[in-house]
């Protein structure tokens, strides 16, 4: 059985360990690192609740081997908050009731953060398009869209504080 040594930077901390190549990134994050905010949902690359940011871009961590992340940077929901407050996207999901059960929420928020990093003023269409790889069974998406708009407004009103 082959094991590979990997060094992966997750939420700013670098973890070096030996793992089997077949270990999925979701399982590495949840079981090796103990960060359970990233969820396993459909197992068919459809639902997006396993979404993390790899070098700033959303990927479905259930369809990615942890060995591929060697030398790369991962952000999970646990790494979203800023030094002294929640990330504006997290604040927006709170303010606009963008979640009910919360299972899709980490993936939704990370995808939304990546959207606002690239497009600070998305239209409603652009928001809905950006989250179209993430399924929500509870909310009907309306408040998720409102949450992202709230976050965009917050970031744009105080860009020095929130653009990083």
């Amino acid at each position, binding site marked *: 059985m*082959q094991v590979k040594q990997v060094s992966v930077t997750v939420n700013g901390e670098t973890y070096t360990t030996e793992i089997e*190549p077949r270990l999925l990134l979701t399982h590495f994050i949840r079981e090796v690192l103990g960060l359970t905010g990233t969820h396993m949902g459909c197992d068919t690359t459809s639902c*997006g609740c396993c979404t993390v940011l790899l070098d700033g871009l959303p*990927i479905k961590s259930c369809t990615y*081997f942890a060995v591929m992340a060697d030398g790369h940077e991962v952000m999970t929901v646990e790494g979203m908050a800023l030094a002294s407050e929640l990330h504006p996207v997290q604040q927006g999901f709170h303010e606009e009731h963008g979640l009910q059960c919360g299972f899709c929420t980490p993936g939704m928020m990370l*995808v939304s953060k990546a959207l606002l990093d690239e497009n600070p003023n998305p239209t409603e269409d652009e928001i809905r398009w950006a989250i179209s790889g*993430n399924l929500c069974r509870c909310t009907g998406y309306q408040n998720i869209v409102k949450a992202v708009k709230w976050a965009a407004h917050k970031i744009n009103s105080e860009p020095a504080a929130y653009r990083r």
Partner: protein
Amino acid sequence: MYPPPFEYIAPDTIEEALQIVAQYGDDCKVLSGGMSLIPLMKLRFASPEVIVDINRIQGLDYLNEEGGGLRVGALVRYRTLVRSDLLKQRYQCAADCAPQVADPVVRNRGTLVGSLCHADPQGDWGAVMLAMNGSVIARSAANGDREIPVDQFIVGPFQNSLNPGEIGVEARIPNQGERSFGKYLKLERKVGDFATAGVAVSIGWTGGSISHAGIALTGVGAANIKATSAESVLMGSSLNQGTIEEAARQAASSCDPKSDHRGSGEYKREIVRVFTVRALSAAAGLRAA
């Protein structure tokens, strides 16, 4: 779930990758985006003993028009294709398809060359490449590069014509004509689903008449289908109600759809006919303007 154990090699150069593929032959699979291969491995429909991860190889992510046609390196992600002005201006069928493949998160990883090598009959890119008369460049350590037209590259469901020891390194799409129009119409039950049925159309005009007519289908046969009888209705001709309706009839009769959870065979066949009418009508609107 997750795959059985495998050996994982991530070479830094294409030369190393080619040597590994030549050495292991059928026991190994190349991994680029992984958006088709990894789901198959997790379901244990595919259990390669060796995975050759080419994502660390530099210089495979080029997208340019050197040599007169479009050249897409093996590591060009759908994300890049969606954002490409070059595609929107001159390779419209591909540009129209790109945002409809899977979903935006999958599009951050998936690659065009990988999709063609995977040869899923429900793959959108196979139809686009057939409509645009594209080709794949296969490279081996022993024999260098050879260019394979897509209709000889995709040979059956999940079957490509790469020889042992070959890796697909590039996709090429020729210039579509001094004026061209492309469209990809895909019926899907929801965003991210495979096509219930899909139609790719690429029309090029030189002077007043059609010099290139490409019509190809997704999800209605054992592989993507090039609707040659529909294409020949249009070649050298012009787009009018008569030619459009005849081409659409020919496209519908070219397909061999299965009845399944996405719809009956007759339904899918009718979708092909309607989508061909719509795409060609849109092309006619452009030309008239």
